[in-house]
C-alpha cells in the first residue's frame, strides 16, 4: 500500500473538509473492497478518511419508503425485520453476496460503490481502461467468461459485481447524496453508468460527495419475488448471472412486474421490456418463458460468455416461476 494520511471524521462536514485536503482522497467505511484495491495499488489514496463514526447507520421507515443509512452494515440490513417483511428481495440479495464476515464489515453504500471483479482490472500488469484509462481492455478479446452481455463498450466489458444492487435496481431505489452544499437524490437506474468512453467512472456520484442513505419506495413485491444467483460454486462466489424479480399479483393478474439482472452489465440491468410484457397478463409458465425470451433480445455475447444469454433467459424464467411458488 502506498503511504497515506489517515483521518477520522465524526460528521459529514469534517469528512468533506478532510477530503478536500488531498487530490486523491478516499472515504473508507467497511473497507472490504477499498483495502483490496489499496493492497493491489489499484487505489492509491493520499488521504484516507474513516467515516465509520458518522451517524448514518440507521434504518428508518415511513409510510412511503424505507431508508437505509449509508453505513448500515450488510448483515444488519439483511436481518432487519422491516426489510425481511416488506423488502424481502433486498434481504435475499444481500445474503447471496460475499460471506458472513464480509457482510459484517461492508456497508450499504460501500456495497453499491464496490468496483468490478474483472480479473484484468485486478492485475496491474494487464491492460484495463477502468484502472488505467487508455491502456486498453484486456477482457474484450481475452478471458471474458465473466464479462458483460449488455451495454459494454469498446473500452470496457466489465460487470458490476453486487447482489444488493440488483435488488435495489429492481425496487427503484434512490441514492441520497450529500455534497458540500446540498442534499440530492439519484434514481438507482441513473446511479451506476455504462462504461462508454470513460469506464474509469463506475457511477455518477460527484467527487467528494457522500452517500447518506438509500431509500426504497414502498412496493408490492414482497409476496411474489425471487432472487436467483447462478455461480460456479454453491456459495461465496460472484454471480455468473443473477436475477431479481418481483411480481405484484392482483385478481389473478400481474399488476406490476420488476426484473433486474446482475453479472450481465456494467450496472444492474433492468429488463423493462419484459416487465411491460408481463404487466396485465395472467401468470403462467408460458408467459414467463416469453418474457425471458424478450429479456435477452439485445444481448451481445463475447467470445467466452455466450452461455450467459441462455443462462439469463433460463434464470428469468425460473425466477418468475419461483416467485409464484
Amino acid at each position, binding site marked *: *500500500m502506498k*503511504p497515506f494520511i489517515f483521518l477520522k471524521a465524526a460528521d459529514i462536514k469534517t469528512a468533506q473538509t478532510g477530503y478536500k485536503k488531498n487530490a486523491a482522497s478516499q472515504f473508507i467505511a467497511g473497507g472490504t473492497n477499498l483495502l483490496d484495491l489499496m493492497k493491489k*495499488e489499484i487505489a492509491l489514496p493520499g488521504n484516507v478518511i474513516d467515516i465509520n463514526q458518522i451517524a448514518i447507520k440507521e434504518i428508518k421507515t415511513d409510510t412511503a419508503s424505507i431508508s437505509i443509512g449509508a453505513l448500515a452494515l450488510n448483515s444488519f440490513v439483511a436481518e432487519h425485520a422491516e426489510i425481511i417483511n416488506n423488502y424481502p428481495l433486498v434481504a435475499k440479495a444481500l445474503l447471496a453476496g460475499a460471506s458472513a464476515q464480509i457482510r459484517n464489515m461492508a456497508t450499504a453504500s460501500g456495497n453499491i460503490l464496490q468496483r468490478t471483479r474483472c480479473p484484468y482490472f485486478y492485475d496491474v*500488469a494487464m491492460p484495463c481502461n477502468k484502472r488505467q484509462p487508455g491502456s486498453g481492455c484486456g477482457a474484450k478479446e481475452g478471458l471474458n467468461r465473466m464479462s458483460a452481455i449488455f451495454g459494454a463498450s469498446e473500452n470496457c466489458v466489465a460487470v458490476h459485481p453486487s447482489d444488493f444492487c440488483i435488488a435495489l435496481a429492481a425496487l427503484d431505489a434512490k441514492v441520497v447524496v450529500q455534497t458540500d452544499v446540498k442534499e440530492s437524490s439519484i434514481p438507482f437506474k441513473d446511479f451506476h453508468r455504462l462504461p462508454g468512453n470513460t469506464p474509469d467512472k463506475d457511477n455518477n456520484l460527484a467527487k467528494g460527495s457522500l452517500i447518506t442513505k438509500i431509500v426504497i419506495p414502498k412496493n408490492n413485491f414482497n409476496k411474489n419475488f425471487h432472487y436467483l444467483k*447462478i455461480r460456479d*460454486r454453491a456459495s*461465496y*462466489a460472484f454471480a455468473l448471472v443473477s436475477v431479481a424479480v418481483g411480481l405484484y399479483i392482483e385478481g389473478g393478474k400481474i399488476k406490476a412486474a420488476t426484473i433486474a439482472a446482475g453479472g450481465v452489465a456494467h450496472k444492474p440491468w433492468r429488463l423493462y421490456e419484459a416487465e411491460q410484457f408481463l404487466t396485465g397478463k395472467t401468470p403462467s409458465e408460458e408467459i414467463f418463458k416469453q418474457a425471458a425470451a424478450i429479456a435477452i433480445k439485445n444481448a451481445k455475447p463475447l467470445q467466452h460468455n455466450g*452461455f450467459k444469454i441462455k443462462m439469463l433467459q433460463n434464470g428469468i424464467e425460473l425466477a418468475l416461476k419461483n416467485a409464484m411458488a
Partner: protein
Amino acid sequence: MGFFDNDNLHTPTADDRVDGKQKVTGTAKFAAEYVIENLVYGVLVGSTIAKGTIQSIDVKEAKNAPGVIDIITHENTIALEKFSDEKKAKEAQLGLRIFYSNEIFSNGQPVALVVAGHLEQAQYAAGLVKITYSKAAHVTNFTAAVEKEKTTKYEEDKTRGDANAWKNGTIKIEQEYAQPVEVHSTIEMHASIAVWEGDDKLTVYDKNHAVKDVQGTIANAFNLKKENVKIQAEFIGGGFGSGLRVWPHTFAAIIAAKKLGRPVKVTITRPQAFTMVGYRPQAWQRVAMGAAADGTITGAVHEAITNTSAYEAFGENSTGITRTLYNFTNLQTKYKTLSLNLATPIWMRAPGEATGSFALESAMDELAHALKMDPVALRLKNYAEKDIDSGLPWSSNFLKECYQTAATKFGWEKRKQEPRSTKNGDWWVGYGMGVGTWGAWRLKASARGKLDSNGNLLLQSATSDMGPGTATAMVAIANNVLGIAKEKIKFQLGNSTLPDAPAQGGSFTLASVGSAVNDVCVAIAKKLFTIATETETSFKEVKFEDVIFKDENLSLKNNPSVIISYTQLLRNKNVTEIDITQASESGDESKKYSFNSYAVHFAEVHVHAYTGVVRVKRFVSCVDAGKIVSEKTAASQIKGAVVWGIGHALMEEQQIDHRYGRIIANDFAGYHIPVNADVPEIDVTFVNKPDPYLNAMGSKGLGEVGLIGSAAAIANAVFNATGKRIRQLPITPDKLI
C-alpha cells in the same frame, strides 16, 4: 512381535489428534510465525512477461522508499556456484535458478526481492521496482500445442499384447479428455525465514513436507555441510505435494539473509501461490476401448500429454492406473510432456492417477453406457486377478468388497441405466461411480525412541504432518506395541535434526515411518525384556514370545501376576533411559507382490434443468487401505480427498491468457475451491483388513486413493442425470445449460 501381532491391536483407534489442542488454540506454529530477533521482510517481484530477458531494472525509487534495506536482483545477488552449471543444478533439483540471469521463462517468475524493516514497507516498495523487458514469443497454450504433439512420437510408449485389439471389440469407444491446470491452494501461503549463524550455519523455518530433502538441497546449493543446515517445519498448513522441494522464494530468503547479515522472512502472496510453488499440470488424454458384447474388454489405449516448464522436466504417471486397475491384456499406454512458458509443475495429491483416472473412469462409464451394461458389472467383468503389468500377485486386494459395500450403502441398485430419466422438481438426478487405485510403498525410515525413568516415551523422526495426522497414528502404533498410555507418548517430527525419514508424499508415511516406529518400539520392548531376564528372577528363563507389554508393565502371558513395571526395570538396571534409534525398511516382498490401495466412489448429483448448476448430494466411498491405525483421521483423509474430487470435477481451473502468457484470476475469487456448502455428508467405510506383507501394521496408505476416481464418479453421475458427457473439466454451469 509388532503392531499387528499384539492382541489389543485389532480395533482401530478413533482418537482425537494429539496436536489438536495446539491447532484449536492457535498455538501451533507455522513457518512464518516464528519470532526471530532482528527480522526483516522480503517481498518478491514477479515478471510481467512470459519469455524474454530483463533489459534493465530501475530500483532507485523503490530503494528510496521508506524502510527499504535492499533490493536483490540478478545484478547484485550473491553468486551461487551451484547455479552456474545448468546440468548440475537440474540434477540437484535447484529448480528455477532465482536471480541467476536476466532470462525470463514464465510470467510471474520472481525477479527481485525487496527487503524492508516492515512488511508494509516491503510490499509498497515492491510496486516501485521498474523493470523493462525484451519480449520473446512465448508458448503457453497447451491445447494448441497438443494438437501438434498428439500424433507425433511419445517419450514413453508401452504395449502389452496387441495395441490394436481394442478395435476388435463389438462395442468401441474412443474419446479425448482435457483437464486444466489445478493449483494446490494450501490455505497457508508458502513462507521461509532464513537465519544464518556465521557463514556456515543456517536455519530455515519453512513450509515443506520434506525436511530432509530440503536440507540436502539447500546444503548442496549453498555449499554447506548438511548437518549445518537445520530445517524446521513442524506445522504445515496443507501441502498436497507443494512442499516437496525447495522453491525460489526460499532461495531468495536465504540469499537475502546472507547478503544482509540478518534474518529474512519471505512469504509469497496468494497470487504468487499460482506461479511460484507448483501446480498440477494441464492434461490432454485419449482413451480407446473395445469390448465384446458381454463386457469383456478386448483392448485399450490410453495416451496422455501433460505440460512442464521451459526450464525443467516434470512428468507424472498419468497412464499408470490403466496399466493395473483392470484386466487389460491388450494395452498400449503412451505419455509425453511438452514445454510451456509456465513455471514448473509439481506433484499434487494423487499425481498422475488423479488425472489418468478421470479419463479411464469416464471412458469405462462411456463403454458401459454403449454396452447398456451396469458400470459396476463392467468393472467386475474386467477385474484383474493379479497385477498384469508386473505379473506379480496382489499382496492384498479387497476391491470386490469395496464395490459390494459401497454399492449397498449407496443404494446403487436404484440407478437408472438410461440417462436423463430421473427428475426431482427442476433438478435432474444422476448416479455415478468411479474407482481409484494407488500403489502402496514402504520406504526406508528411521525413528528414535527414548523411554525415560518416569515411563514417558519420546519418539522422533524427520517425517512431516501436512494434515493427515502423522503423530496421532504414530502414537497409536507405539501405544499398541508397548502398552504405554498415549498421554505419556510424544512424537516429534518436522525437523531435519531428527532421524531420517522420507518426505511426506505418495501415501507412504504410515507404511514407512510407522514401520520404523513399530520397530523401535519392538527394540525397546526387547531391551526391557532383556533387563527383566537379567534383573528379575521370575523372568530369568522366560522367552520373549511369552511376555506381554501392557499398561506400562511387562508380564507373563500365562501368569499375569508375574509383572514388573518399565520404570522398575530401568531402576533395576540403574539406567535413566532406554534410547534407541532404529532404521527400518522393506525386505524383498516388493519383488514378490504388487501392493495397492483401492477406493470405490459412488456419487449422487443433481443438475438444475434451468441453470446448469451441479450439486453433489450424496457421496459414498469404500476404501481398501489395509489395516486402519487411526480411524478418525483416516476417515477425514478420505473425506478431504473427496472434497478435492468435487473441486476437480466441478470448479477448479487456472485460467491463462495466452496473449500475454499470464495467469489471470489468480486468487480465491478467481480460482474456486469447494466451500462448505458444496460438500454433502461424505460416507466413508474402510474394508480394514490387513495387508499381510507390506509392514507390521498391515496398512497400505490412503492420502491419495480417496481422490482417485472421485471426479469421474461425479462426471459420470452428471452424465446419468443429464445425458451430457463432459470431457473437459471442470463441469461448470455453462457447460450444462
